[in-house]
C-alpha cells in the first residue's frame, strides 16, 4: 500500500497551491527557494561558525590556557538535558502563542551570542559551565521557532528541500568554525581571548542577519481567533499523524547509539590511530553536509517518512559494518569511510526530514509547539539510549551491546514502517482545506 501511495507522488506535488507556490512556476519545475529559508540558513551557518569556534578551542583553553582539569565536566549533562527539553518546549509554544517565532528565535540566538563575551570573563570551571549552560539554553529556545519559520516559509511540497538547505548550511558552519579558530591561534599563540572575541562578533552578525532579513509574522492572528493555549499545545498529540510521528521518533531515538559511542566503536573495530580520532566527527559532519540537500529533495519526491526510515536503515547498516568489520576479519581501509558516510547519511535523512514530515502533521498556529514536541521526544529518547547503551556496555561489553542496539533498531524501524503516518499528500489536502 505504501508503494501504491507514493507512486503517484510527482503529480500531486505540483498541484497548484495558491498561497505557497510562486506565480509563474511551471509544472514540473520547482519554485525558487524561499528567501526566508536562505536567510535562516545563513543565520545558522554564521551562528555555527561562532559556536564551533568556541567548542573547538575550549579543551585547549581549559587545559593549556587556564591550567584546569576538565574531567567530570560532563556531570551536569544529565540534569541539563531535562532543562533543555523544557526550554525547547517553552520556545516552541511561546512562538505559537505570541505569534512571534522570529522574536523567540532572535532571543535564543541573542542569548547564545551574549555568552561569547561572557567567556572572556569566566575563568573557573563552574563559571564556564554556567556560561555554556546559558549558551545551550539559547540553542534550546531557538530551535523550534526557527524550524517553524522554515516550515512556514517553504511550500509544503518543498519542505524537505528547505530543511535540507538549512541543515547543509548549518553543518557547513560547523565545519568552518574550527578551522577559523585554529587559524587565529596560529596567528596569535594562546590567543583564546581573540578567538572568543571573534566568535562574539560572528555571533552578533548572525543575530543581525536574522533581525534584518527574516520577516516577522506576516499577519497578526485575527482578533476572533482562539488563543493558542498550553492545553491545546499538548492536545496536539490527539492528532493521529503527529502522535505516530512523535512515537516513532521516540522509539527510533531509543535505539540510536550516541555519536560518542559510534566513534569509539569505530575506533575499536578498525584500530584507527588516536591522532585521527578527533577527525571522525568531521567525517560524519561532512557526509551530513553533502547529503542533506539531495536527501531533502528525495524526501519531497518519494515521501519524507520513507527517507526518514531509510536513514535509520543506513544507521542499521553502519551498526552491521561495525559488528562484522571488527576484529578477526582484518582491517579494511574502506570501513571507516563507509561507516562515517552512513552515519552522516543517517543525519541527513532524519534530522531535517523529520521536521519536514512533522510540519505536515501540525496546523500552522501550533507549528512551533508541535515541532518542539517531536524534537524533545527524540532528544530525550536519545539521551536515555546513551545511558542505556553505557550500562549495556558495562554489563555485556561493547559488541554485544551494539548487537542488541542493532536488533532493537531493526524492530523499531519495522514497527514504524507499519505505523507510518498518512503521507504528505493527506497533510497537503488538509492544508488546502484550511486555506479555503
Amino acid at each position: 500500500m505504501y508503494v501504491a501511495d507514493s507512486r503517484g507522488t510527482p503529480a500531486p506535488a505540483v498541484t497548484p497551491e495558491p498561497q505557497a507556490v510562486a506565480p509563474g512556476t511551471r509544472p514540473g519545475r520547482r519554485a525558487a527557494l524561499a528567501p526566508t529559508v536562505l536567510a535562516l540558513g545563513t543565520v545558522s551557518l554564521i551562528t555555527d561558525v561562532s559556536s564551533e569556534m568556541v567548542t573547538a578551542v575550549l579543551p585547549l583553553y581549559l587545559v593549556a590556557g587556564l591550567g584546569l582539569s576538565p574531567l567530570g565536566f560532563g556531570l551536569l549533562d544529565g540534569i541539563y538535558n531535562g532543562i533543555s527539553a523544557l526550554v525547547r518546549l517553552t520556545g516552541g509554544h511561546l512562538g505559537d502563542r505570541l505569534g512571534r517565532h522570529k522574536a523567540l528565535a532572535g532571543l535564543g540566538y541573542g542569548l547564545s551570542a551574549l555568552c561569547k563575551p561572557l567567556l572572556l570573563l569566566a575563568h573557573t570551571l563552574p563559571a564556564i559551565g554556567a556560561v555554556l549552560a546559558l549558551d545551550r539554553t539559547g540553542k534550546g529556545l531557538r530551535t523550534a521557532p526557527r524550524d517553524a519559520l522554515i516550515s512556514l516559509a517553504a511550500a509544503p511540497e518543498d519542505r524537505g528541500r528547505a530543511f535540507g538547505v538549512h541543515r547543509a548550511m548549518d553543518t557547513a558552519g560547523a565545519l568552518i568554525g574550527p578551522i577559523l579558530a585554529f587559524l587565529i591561534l596560529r596567528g596569535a599563540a594562546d590567543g583564546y581571548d581573540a578567538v572568543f572575541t571573534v566568535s562574539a562578533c560572528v555571533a552578533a552578525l548572525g543575530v543581525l542577519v536574522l533581525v534584518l532579513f527574516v520577516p516577522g509574522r506576516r499577519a497578526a492572528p485575527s482578533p476572533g481567533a482562539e488563543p493558542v493555549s498550553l492545553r491545546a499545545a499538548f492536545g496536539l498529540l490527539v492528532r493521529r499523524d503527529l502522535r505516530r510521528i512523535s512515537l516513532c521518533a521516540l522509539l527510533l531515538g531509543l535505539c540510536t547509539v550516541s555519536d560518542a559511542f559510534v566513534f569509539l566503536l569505530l575506533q575499536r573495530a578498525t584500530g584507527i590511530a588516536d591522532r585521527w580520532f578527533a577527525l571522525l566527527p568531521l567525517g560524519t559532519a561532512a557526509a551530513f553536509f553533502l547529503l542533506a540537500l539531495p536527501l531533502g529533495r528525495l524526501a519531497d519526491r518519494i515521501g519524507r517518512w520513507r527517507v526518514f526510515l531509510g536513514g535509520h536503515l543506513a544507521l542499521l547498516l553502519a551498526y552491521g559494518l561495525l559488528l562484522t568489520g571488527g576484529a578477526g576479519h582484518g582491517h579494511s581501509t574502506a570501513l571507516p569511510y563507509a561507516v562515517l558516510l552512513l552515519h552522516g547519511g543517517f543525519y541527513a535523512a532524519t534530522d531535517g526530514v523529520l521536521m519536514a514530515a512533522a510540519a505536515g502533521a501540525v496546523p500552522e498556529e501550533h507549528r512551533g509547539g508541535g515541532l518542539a514536541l517531536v524534537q524533545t521526544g527524540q532528544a530525550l529518547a536519545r539521551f536515555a539510549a546513551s545511558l542505556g547503551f553505557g550500562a549495556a556496555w558495562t554489563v555485556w561489553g561493547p559488541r554485544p551491546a551494539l548487537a542488541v542496539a542493532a536488533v532493537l533498531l531493526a524492530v523499531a524501524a519495522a514497527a514504524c514502517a507499519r505505523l507510518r503516518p498518512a503521507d504528505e499528500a493527506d497533510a497537503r489536502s488538509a492544508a488546502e482545506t484550511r486555506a479555503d
Partner: protein
Amino acid sequence: MTLQRRILVLVCAVLLLAAVGVLAVVRASSRADEKNQPQAGGPQITRGEVTLAPDAGERRIVFRNMAWGPHRDELATVPAGAPQGPRTASGVSCLRFHAAAGTGICLQADKGGVQESYRAVVLDAHLKEVSAHPLAGIPTRARVSPGGHLVAWTVFVGGDSYAGTNFSTRTSLLDLRTGTFDASLEDFAIRKDGKAYRNADVNFWGVTFAADERTFYATLATGGQTYLVRGDLAERTVTTLRENLECPSLSPDGTRLVFKKRVPGLSPDAPWRLYVLDLASMRETPLAEERSVDDQVVWTDDKTVVYSLPGDFGADLYSLPADGSGAPAPLMASALAPAFLG
C-alpha cells in the same frame, strides 16, 4: 526598512565587527610576541648543555622554563642547591616533562598543520630523540620509572562538536626494554572491589611507577568516582585500592603516596588538597598546603615533595614536607614539571 537600507546596515555592521575582530587578533598576536621578550626581573637564562645523565656531577633540577624570553617553554636546568639562580636552557621545547635514570619523556606541541597536534618524545640522557608517538589530545601528565625503563603519559581527549563538553583522558604506557606500547591503559583488565569490571566511561590518569619496574599506581575514574589503582604491567591488570584519590606520586622508598584529594565542602573552583597515604597502614594525612593543588607532585627525597601552583607567568614551584608538618616554601618562579636528577 527597504532592502537597500537593510543591506547598508549589514555592511556597516560587518565592517565594524570585522574591525573589532581584527583588533582582538592583532592585540593577542602582539601579546604573544611580548612573551618572547625577556621579562624584567626574570631569571637569567643562557643557552647551554642540559643532560639527564644520573652521574653528571652535582644534583640538579631539569624543568620546563616558563619565564618569558626566547627560551620560554624549553627544558632548562639549575643546580638543586641554587634553584633561583641562573638557568641553562636546552633548546628542546616541552609542555610536560619528567626524567629518571637518564631517560626523559617530553610531551610537546607539533606546530605542523592548521590544528595544533602533540607528540610524546622519549629522550636519552643527551636530550636526543629515541622515539616519538603522536598524541590524541592535550598533554597533562608524564612519568618515567625510577629505573628509566618505563614511560607513561596522559592526555585529555574530547570537546569535539558532537561529543559536546564531555572530556576523557587517555593514558599510554611504553616499555623501553621490549618496545611494548600500550596505547590505552583502558585495555588492561580491571578488578574493582574483587570483581572483574568494565565500563565505557572508564578513564585513567596520573601514573606513578614503583622501583621494581613492573608495578605502578594510577587514578581510575568511573561512574563519577575516582579510585587509586595498583597496576601490574606483566599481568596487564589494575586493581582498585581506595576511593577519591587522584594523581598519586610514589615516594622513592615506595612506602607512601602523595596525591590530590577532592575534599567535600570546598569551592568547586578549588576542590583539591594534597594528602599523603601510608601504603602499609592505608592511613592518610593532610599536608600543610591550604591552597588547591592540581598537579602530580614530584618527590625530591623521602621527606619532601614539589608541586606547581598557578603563577604570574604560568606556574611557580613550591616545596613542602611530605608528612603534614611545616609549611609550603617557594622553590622557583616561572617553572613547571621538574625532575630532580643526580
